[in-house]
């Protein structure tokens, strides 16, 4: 029997692999792939957000109404009673000769169901596919928007992932202070829905006496001033422009050194804005952000070039956050908080300390026990056990997996279960030795006899952890991952590795024939 055999070589390679790839994680070096610590271990903020997708459908309806209005104004087609209902847009074309042109224009809009009565009353609704698509896009756009905003906010490694149909998971490991947390949450939840709306100058004086339903009869809505809720504006319900046309937004300062936000519109937005301002000289333009009027300046002349500004007594920080939010696009629908978990950094540190103690103590107990009970066989099993831990860490680091508290528990548990394979094998060997079989044969048969049981037992455990992974969330997933890696690694170390060691030690064992020393037998 050769000292070196293929099993031993593979085992030695896996030791080298395990040690090399787990070192960056143990030593916390800057280079190399490391295990990232879960939020429960390093502290941070975890949010589960639900997107109110129905809102996106409503705003889609609104934008269709805006398109109809802009087109008919532009082409001087007379329509009346243009109104937005929760799931439809209705209007009437007055001149029958223009119906053809309106129809042609509407055909260009995707996913629209057009129904028309004999008096040319139009009702526009969305097809079910379009509604589903709008909802789906709302969530992906929200993910994109939130990610952009957090990136610009300058947090370390924010994670924004879509989960299921309407939910978004946001993880922010870098959050240390209360103020950071608050700012991040505001940035996430700010709709940043910029709308430019026309003030209804004909009825503006009546705004303080008018009710909401009365206003809607004229196609108007009543909005509050951002700073002074008592101050109200009567504006046209259908906006001239919305935030989707904004391409850039920057903080600037006005003459009195107040923070303002300069925004730039894309080409379509610039054209619409230019046309509108040309037609409305002398009237007021309300700059509305998230349903509140920030300012309503008089239009003095046509504003070309597609840029405008929002002033309204912002603080510098506030203006900065609004600018970030505008730049990264509006949230197509508002988000609600479904779940929030925030862990302070000190708690995370405590958790690491406690589980490290548990890991080391449990590990030490198992190691000592194995040596006392099995002698050299126990030492061999322990070598496999240590390698096992290195490999788990190495593989997790390679895949950039996250170590969570339940994940730590998973490793601790693996320590307990990983010796199982060696216990089964050693017990088999001892049983054969008791029947006076030669050491060489006992080792070989011990391994082959034990193999089927170990395989069946490991496969079932693996199956359960796969199910755990599929149905679990966050920490549970982490636990399932460590257990699975642990089981697979133990097949490599405890079965293949120890077999290799035995093979290379067999000549020595046969010479000594000391069963007490090698297997702890009486």
């Amino acid at each position: 029997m050769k000292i070196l055999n293929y099993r031993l070589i593979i085992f030695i390679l896996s030791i080298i692999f395990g040690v090399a790839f787990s070192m960056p994680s143990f030593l916390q070096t800057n280079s190399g792939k490391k295990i990232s610590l879960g939020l429960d271990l390093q502290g941070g903020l975890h949010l589960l957000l639900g997107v109110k997708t129905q809102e996106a459908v409503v705003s889609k309806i609104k934008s269709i109404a805006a398109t109809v209005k802009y087109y008919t104004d532009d082409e001087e087609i007379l329509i009346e009673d243009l109104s937005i209902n929760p799931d439809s847009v209705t209007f009437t074309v007055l001149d029958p000769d223009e119906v053809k042109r309106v129809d042609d224009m509407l055909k260009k809009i995707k996913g629209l169901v057009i129904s028309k009565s004999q008096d040319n009353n139009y009702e526009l609704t969305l097809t079910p596919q379009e509604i589903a698509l709008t909802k789906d896009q709302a969530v992906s756009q929200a993910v994109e928007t939130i990610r952009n905003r957090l990136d610009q906010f300058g947090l370390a490694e924010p994670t924004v992932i879509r989960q299921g149909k309407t939910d978004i998971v946001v993880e922010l490991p870098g959050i240390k202070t209360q103020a950071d947390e608050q700012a991040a949450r505001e940035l996430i939840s700010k709709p940043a829905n910029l709308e430019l709306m026309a003030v209804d100058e004909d009825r503006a004086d009546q705004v303080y006496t008018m009710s909401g339903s009365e206003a809607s009869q004229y196609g108007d809505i009543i909005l509050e001033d951002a700073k002074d809720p008592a101050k109200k504006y009567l504006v046209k319900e259908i906006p001239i422009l919305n935030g989707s046309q904004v391409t850039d937004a920057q903080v600037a300062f006005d003459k009195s050194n107040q923070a303002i936000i300069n925004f730039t519109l894309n080409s379509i937005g610039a054209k619409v804005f230019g046309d509108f301002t040309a037609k409305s000289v002398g009237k007021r333009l309300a700059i509305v952000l998230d349903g509140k009027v920030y300012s309503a300046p008089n239009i003095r002349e046509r504003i070309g070039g597609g840029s405008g500004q929002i002033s309204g007594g912002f603080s510098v920080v506030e203006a900065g956050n609004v600018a970030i939010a505008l730049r990264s696009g509006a949230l197509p629908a508002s988000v609600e908080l479904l779940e929030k978990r925030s862990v302070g950094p000190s708690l995370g540190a405590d958790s690491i300390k406690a589980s490290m103690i548990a890991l080391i103590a449990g590990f030490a107990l198992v190691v000592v026990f194995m040596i006392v009970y099995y002698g050299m066989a126990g030492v061999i099993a322990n070598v496999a056990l240590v390698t096992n831990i290195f490999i788990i860490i190495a593989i997790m680091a390679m895949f950039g997996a996250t170590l969570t508290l339940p994940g730590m528990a998973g490793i601790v548990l693996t320590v307990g279960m990983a010796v199982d394979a060696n216990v089964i094998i050693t017990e088999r060997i001892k049983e054969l030795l008791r029947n006076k079989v030669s050491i060489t044969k006992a080792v070989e048969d011990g391994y082959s006899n034990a193999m089927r049981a170990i395989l069946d037992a490991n496969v079932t455990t693996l199956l359960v952890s796969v199910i755990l992974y599929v149905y679990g969330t966050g920490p549970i997933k982490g636990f399932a991952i460590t257990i699975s890696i642990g089981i697979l690694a133990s097949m490599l170390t405890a079965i293949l590795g120890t077999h290799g060691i035995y093979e290379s030690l067999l000549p020595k064992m046969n010479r000594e024939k000391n069963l007490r020393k090698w297997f702890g037998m009486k």
Partner: protein
Amino acid sequence: MEFFKGDKIYNFMGKRLPFLGFSTILVVTSIVLLLTKGVNFGIDFAGGTLVQVKYEKAAPIDKIRDILNKTKEYKNSSITKFGSDDEIIIRVTTSTNSVSSDLSDEIRNVLKGTGNFEIRRVDIVGPKVGGELREKGLMAFVLSLIVIMIYVSFRFEWRFALASILALVHDVTIALGAVSLFGIEVNLDILAAVLTLLGYSLNDTIIVFDRIREGVQTSKESDLSKVVNESVSRTLSRTTLTSLTTFFVVATLYFFGGEIINGFAFTLLVGIIVGTYSSIFIAASFLVQLKFSIEDFRTKEVEKIKKQKEKEKMRAMFEQGTV
């Protein structure tokens, strides 16, 4: 060192009825506990808000309770010590839906004047999420049972599968009974513990069953009880040893792992004890009670081998071009 004499065969099956009786009492008690006392669902499943606060000195729990009782929002909150005297957990059943509202700021304000403290953790789980988690948890459990059933039926025989499932249900029910009895808060980590237990207990049972399968195939013995006795006795050393090493580790986790991992470790601790007991005394007796027939199994095995051989013959003939 050796715990058990290698060649001694214990007569487990002779005493299977008393053990089955004892297990029945345990299982029934657990079910009664679960139905009457129920389990204490934590916020992961029930929804709600949890705030963990650490004080510099011992937390003035009575004072905190007084202050919270005076506010409208936190009137029905529960306050409990968490691990040590200076750390407490405040649980509120309501949870906000707005991303921007900040509960920890509110709590900080309300508790001002109770001493120096630090808010270490704030968990808010909405009711929708809780319901979803409960559903998924149950789903995972049922799915695990089905997968195990299929795998064991395929590798062994359907009675083995049924017996191992019965043993699993036995172990999990008793562990849940203990969770209910001691009022342990059921959160995601307890679910993980129960599912681990599933794997662990199955592991133990499979090792014993593997020995029985081997005994049936290799020995000439046709009395199932005798085969079972021999198999369980032969694996006794392994069963207790593995349980012992796992027990060591989980016990250290329980004593040193900190409050947060306590429920998890406790559930596993109970599970390991019950799992070990059931794989020695209970699992195999189900096999006997289900009237597993050695003769049938052997005939089937012989047929299987015959079929296999025929297949090989056919293949050989096919390859030689005679078919």
